[in-house]
């Protein structure tokens, strides 16, 4: 009845020779893919420069961005003020340097809030299905149909504008896309064999959600986190433009907003903060794009 003619082989045949291929940790492989992407590397360098400026800038260039230091609307280069002064005579370079702090802090914090809420909602909805999913996705839809900038403005106005409230407001209005993405990933992965396998060795739900499915859902979520940083930076700039910024901390958006009426007399006062915002968002997006390529399993196959 067997498929074999001869009696079954006497001993288990030798497997492959004792050759063990070199182990490459997944993160190393990701880095290799990332480093191949020149644009992404450029983004990384650019972002490093901006972060360096935020961290070290105030020590290297100790000037208060709110101090009136020279004649208003002096063009770039006047009396050693490399970027000139604004409509009140404040040093623009100091503004750019200090402004990078608000931008980066709000960008990172808001993106973190976005990702945390998004993953929490998406993971629970996608894993448990049923009424949990129904409820959470209706809430998601509710937030999706609210105009985000308007909602963020209302939130910031209700609680006085500080870095914390601004970050929370931005996070609260922009988590829906991440939640949908996380849910989709969880819906896909929960049906895979190794999730069944984890259940079959006696793992509990919390373990399966956070330690089995989430690490496998991470690549697209990391990419979405990178883009969330860019969006949050733009949001922060938009709110500050409307003077909904922390009045104690200089911000690029505020610089553009406050100098807007004088744009014809002193173009530089709005242009340089604008360039700063542009470059930061560009850097973050390039990194996000690079991560997308590096983490995409289909592109990673050798």
């Amino acid at each position, binding site marked *: *009845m067997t*498929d074999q003619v001869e009696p079954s082989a006497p001993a*288990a045949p030798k*497997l492959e020779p004792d050759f*063990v291929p070199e182990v490459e940790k997944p993160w190393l492989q990701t880095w290799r893919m990332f480093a191949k992407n020149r644009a992404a590397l450029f983004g990384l360098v650019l972002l490093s420069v901006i972060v360096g400026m935020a961290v070290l800038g105030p020590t290297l260039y100790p000037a208060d961005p709110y101090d009136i230091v020279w004649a208003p609307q002096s063009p770039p280069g006047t009396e050693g003020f490399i970027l000139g002064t604004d409509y009140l005579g404040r040093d623009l370079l100091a503004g750019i340097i200090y402004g990078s702090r608000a931008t980066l802090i709000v960008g990172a914090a808001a993106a973190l809030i976005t990702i945390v809420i998004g993953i929490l909602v998406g993971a629970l909805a996608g894993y448990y299905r049923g009424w949990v999913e129904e409820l959470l996705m209706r809430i998601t839809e509710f937030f999706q149909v609210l105009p985000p900038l308007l909602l963020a403005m209302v939130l910031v106005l209700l609680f006085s504008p500080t870095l914390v409230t601004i970050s929370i407001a931005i996070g609260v209005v922009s988590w829906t896309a991440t939640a949908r993405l996380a849910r989709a990933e969880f819906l896909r992965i929960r049906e895979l064999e190794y999730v*069944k*396998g984890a259940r*079959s060795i006696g793992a509990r739900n919390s373990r399966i959600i956070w330690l089995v499915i989430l690490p496998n859902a991470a690549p697209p979520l990391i990419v979405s986190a990178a883009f969330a940083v860019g969006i949050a930076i733009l949001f922060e700039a938009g709110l500050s433009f409307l003077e909904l910024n922390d009045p104690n901390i200089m911000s690029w958006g505020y610089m553009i907003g406050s100098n807007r009426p004088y744009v014809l007399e002193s173009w530089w006062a709005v242009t340089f903060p604008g360039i700063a915002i542009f470059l930061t968002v560009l850097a973050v997006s390039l990194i996000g794009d690079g991560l997308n390529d590096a983490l995409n399993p289909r592109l990673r196959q050798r």
Partner: protein
Amino acid sequence: MNTPSPILSVADLAVEFDMRDGVARVIDDLSFDLMPGETLGIVGESGCGKSMTALSIMRLVPMPPGRIAGGEIRLDGENLVAASDVRIREIRGNEISMIFQEPMTSLNPVYTVGDQIAETVRLHEGLSKRDARDRAIEMLRAVAIPAPEARVEEYPHQLSGGMRQRVMIAMALTCRPRVLIADEPTTALDVTVQAQIFDLLRDLKEQTQTAIILITHDMGVIAEMAQRVVVMYAGRKVEDAPVDELLLNPKHPYSQGLIACVPHLQAVPTVERPPLMEIPGVVPSVSELGRGGCPFAPRCAQAMDRCRQQMPPPSTVAPGHQVACWLIDETRAA
């Protein structure tokens, strides 16, 4: 049955699924016993409820839409159908474990194989990281993976299909379960690798005395591995017999068909071969189940009027040999 009491006993198991147009009984009236140290084969075509039986024993039937609608599954006397979720988690991986069909997708790609094997013991025996790792290496050695100290640090994608299935077996056996369910463990593998895996399973079974439920559609595999066979069709048991008895003297037309449709290698290749038979038709879809009458009747060459009206009850034709078919009555009457 015999004197020793079964380690696992399934009685009158029924599993239902909610479908768009009503309830489908995907498993009905299923009863079988698994003796300690025995290998029981469950055969049938795709969609016969073999895998669902395995999932029911592990209490892994997706619910909703599925549910265990009736019957008992007793592990050493303890009814798993009524057990609490906490108890079930203790049993899974520890007393009953399972090997899945697809070694390519049943390992988690983001953890090393060592971590995954260690996971099982850490969950059930609360070993320290270091001890669990040592156990993982020991298990990798037990499943004959070369250089286990190095392999333990590897990720699933670095291993071949056969190696991955070995890792799965290592995972399933780390806690020395009393029952191992192997759901088509070699379907996705090359024939040569398949033979290796079965050799391994047989060796390990001898060492650990684990009882195995082997789910397959391959009669050749059954002949080599199993002591007893349950043939399933459309969620029901149609025949249950010792392996030799079933292969030499199958009573149910479906069992006969399953055996006749396997090509055999012959010692002298030029000898005229018996024609390869096929079973016409396909397994009924779940929504067609439970219409009364024998579910196999539409495909059965020997079907009688009675077959289309009444479900044949299981009857014993020889010691330990049960068949659910009206033909048995006919031959008896004759």
